[in-house]
């Protein structure tokens, strides 16, 4: 905490203004306008660019300037506070810390000579991105609105979808320097009270200087480090509303269009909003495609390498001949070839992502067409290997949520398959399975509802039943929490 934060506001206007100028270091964006209101010396402070000049002029300055003469500063302050509704958000400021926090949040603050309090008026008017379709989490039949970087509009987007007083918001200020607004959101009748308490404690434990992206807060919401995210992220208000309805809690912050949601289960990575818009049979089919895609993206290159190197007898004759012919003149070993192609893909993907969009397209063409074609033509990479890698990578796009973990684990699986065949893949697979089974998100096992097994939950995991059936479920995530007792091991 900075030294000035707890300093009380001095009574003299001269001193108040001197303090403000001193603490702000005469910063160019501090607007401090001395003026007489009702015959009393006052000053209107604001931060340039954070307030709306038009609103400020019409709703605050104009009515204040028309005030009749006041006997003293106390009468002026109480008149403005009690008889004039100049803004809906009207905090009273008693210390310099609050004063600066309000100024930097788009408030205009009226300092009055002889008063140890100042009056704040919410006049926010800073520039912000308009609401548009989110860049990720694309869907066909859902809404095309996504969160933006301002917290208040995001909260209103959520409120529009949940018009109930049971939807609760709790504001926190985080970051000793950034003073970022962070909102906790939950449905009061659905959320487990101890989960809410745990999340408040987790946020309180964060003693950060700044909170710039949700990534700053995420580690505090993940109790155990895991390869897989135990906190889900969404930039869609409709998705968030659905998650809150299941008893989850969201953490939203000013400056980011992403909301963090806890607890997160692994099966959520395979669910999209469109699943609930399509016909159940098609949604169930898509679910299975996603499960298959996950296995393909993780294991296909490794199994291909393992079978080709260690268990060729398990391949059918045609495939074996095809592979033998293709790999006969390759200069690299199969595992090296597979790892090399995947690393090359990651390089091209990263280049396409970071470069300006105009150049990014060119990188994709150079990477995909020129390098890929040249590598095959020159004999550096075999066509079957390129095909297998392309299938694996494309399958990964179907479950983007798991992409970071899959990208890294895929390389380890290839190495294990190349060194020790299916035995290596099996061992690494078991280690990964144990890792998953060990992971928890605030006491919720991420492998639920598969393990612990909840047969009734399978209707929205292995398949997707219609809303006629689902409407009677009253499902909340609390059902997946393993109950108390003594700790095992």
């Amino acid at each position, binding site marked *: 905490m900075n030294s000035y934060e707890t300093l009380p506001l001095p009574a003299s206007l001269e001193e108040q203004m001197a303090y403000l100028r001193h603490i702000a270091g005469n910063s160019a964006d501090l607007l401090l306008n001395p003026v007489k209101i009702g015959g009393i010396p006052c000053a209107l402070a604001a931060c340039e660019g954070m307030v709306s000049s038009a609103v400020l002029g019409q709703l605050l300055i104009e009515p204040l300037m028309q005030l009749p003469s006041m006997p003293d500063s106390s009468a002026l302050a109480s008149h403005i506070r009690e008889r004039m509704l100049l803004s809906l958000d009207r905090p009273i400021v008693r210390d310099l810390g609050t004063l600066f926090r309000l100024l930097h949040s788009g408030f205009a603050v009226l300092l009055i000579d002889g008063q140890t309090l100042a009056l704040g008026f919410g006049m926010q008017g800073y520039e912000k991105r308009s609401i548009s379709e989110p860049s990720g989490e694309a869907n066909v039949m859902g809404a095309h609105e996504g969160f933006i970087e301002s917290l208040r509009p995001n909260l209103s987007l959520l409120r529009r979808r949940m018009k109930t007083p049971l939807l609760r918001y709790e504001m926190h200020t985080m970051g000793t320097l950034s003073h970022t607004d962070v909102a906790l959101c939950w449905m009061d009748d659905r959320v487990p009270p101890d989960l809410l308490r745990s999340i408040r404690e987790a946020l309180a434990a964060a003693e950060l200087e700044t909170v710039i992206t949700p990534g700053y807060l995420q580690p505090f919401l993940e109790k155990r480090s895991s390869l897989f995210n135990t906190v889900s992220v969404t930039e869609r208000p409709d998705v968030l509303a659905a998650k809150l309805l299941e008893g989850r809690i969201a953490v939203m912050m000013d400056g980011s269009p992403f909301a963090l949601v806890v607890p997160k289960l692994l099966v959520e990575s395979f669910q999209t909003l469109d699943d609930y818009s399509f016909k159940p049979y098609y949604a169930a089919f898509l679910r299975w495609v996603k499960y298959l895609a996950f296995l393909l993206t993780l294991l296909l290159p490794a199994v291909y390498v393992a079978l080709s190197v260690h268990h060729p007898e398990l391949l059918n004759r045609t495939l074996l001949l095809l592979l033998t012919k293709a790999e006969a003149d390759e200069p690299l070993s199969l595992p090296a070839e597979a790892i090399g192609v995947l690393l090359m893909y990651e390089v091209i993907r990263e280049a396409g992502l970071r470069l300006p969009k105009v150049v990014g397209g060119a990188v994709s063409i150079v990477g995909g067409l020129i390098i890929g074609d040249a590598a095959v033509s020159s004999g550096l990479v075999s066509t079957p290997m390129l095909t297998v890698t392309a299938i694996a990578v494309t399958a990964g796009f179907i479950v983007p949520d798991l992409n970071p973990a899959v990208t890294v684990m895929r390389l380890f699986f290839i190495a294990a398959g190349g060194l020790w065949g299916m*035995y290596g893949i099996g061992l690494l697979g078991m280690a990964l399975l144990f890792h998953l089974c060990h992971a928890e998100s605030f006491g919720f096992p991420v492998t639920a509802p598969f393990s612990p097994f909840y047969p009734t939950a399978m209707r929205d995991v292995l398949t997707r039943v219609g809303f006629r059936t689902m409407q009677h479920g009253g499902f909340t995530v609390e059902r997946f929490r393993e109950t108390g007792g003594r700790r095992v091991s």
Partner: protein
Amino acid sequence: MNKITSCQLLSLLLLQGIWEILCIPSIPGSGMLWGALGAYLVQLLLLLPLLHGETGLFRRKWVGLVFAGYFLIAGARNLCQIASAAPDALLSVSGRWTAAALLLVTCLYTSAAGIKAAARCAPLTLGLLALSVLILTAGAWQHIVPERFYWERGGIREGGALFFTAAELPMLWVLRHRLEGSAHRTLLGYTLAKSGFLALLVFLCITAGGRLAQSADYPFFTLTALSQPLQGQRADALYILLFVMLCVMQITMQAGLTAHLLEELFPKLRHTAPAILLTMLGLSGGLGFRTLDGLTAMLLPVLAFGIPCTLLLLGQLKRRAAA
């Protein structure tokens, strides 16, 4: 913190039980099925009344130590079984020691994750096992000659001997007081599923594998080589994965239970898994399968039935005396 659900305990017991069935060295005849079913029935009848009473088994330190010792020996025996069955399971690792070292490194990680993680993992592994059995049955279907399966006395003794290989029963006592649900129903489900699996395996080995599968070492693995559901592509890769998964589950559970008991007895002990796994490896190399098999067969009835029964009776006598 967490308890074990009935489904998880059932899966853990079944995986251990099925492993022993997969490692049956030979199937002399259909009599083995009847002998084994009789053995399982006796086990069930002995255990059901014991589960009714509160034995206070692990309130006594020496009981915990004996159980921990048993799991250590059972783990070493499992390592010997794995080393012996590995060539039949088409493992592609050169040298048994490399395979063992890799397995131990994996188990070092998995056993450190704790029994809870193993319990959560068990139903998933069991699901894969069920899928493999389905594929195996589908593949073996076309080779089945039902006339090969007829009543014969051969194998009754070998089947009855399976009574002494149920290494999972002591585990039931350790995990019983963590169970959330009915222990009786779990035990009943376990016995039924295990009997069903054994019946299927014996039936398939005799009718589809014929004399070849019956006389070969590890009939299950011979059967997997014979049973291929697809004409163009062999399915052995799936069985290799299954074998590895079961290996890891076996060793992890034995090491995890030993560590759990030791850490409960001596709370200052921490991170015992590496030492336990190395001891298992040392025991398996030093004593060999026969000695370890004899030891576990001798200890099993004592741990699974003898000690709980004695303690239960003593407790009841004390209560009567007090009344």
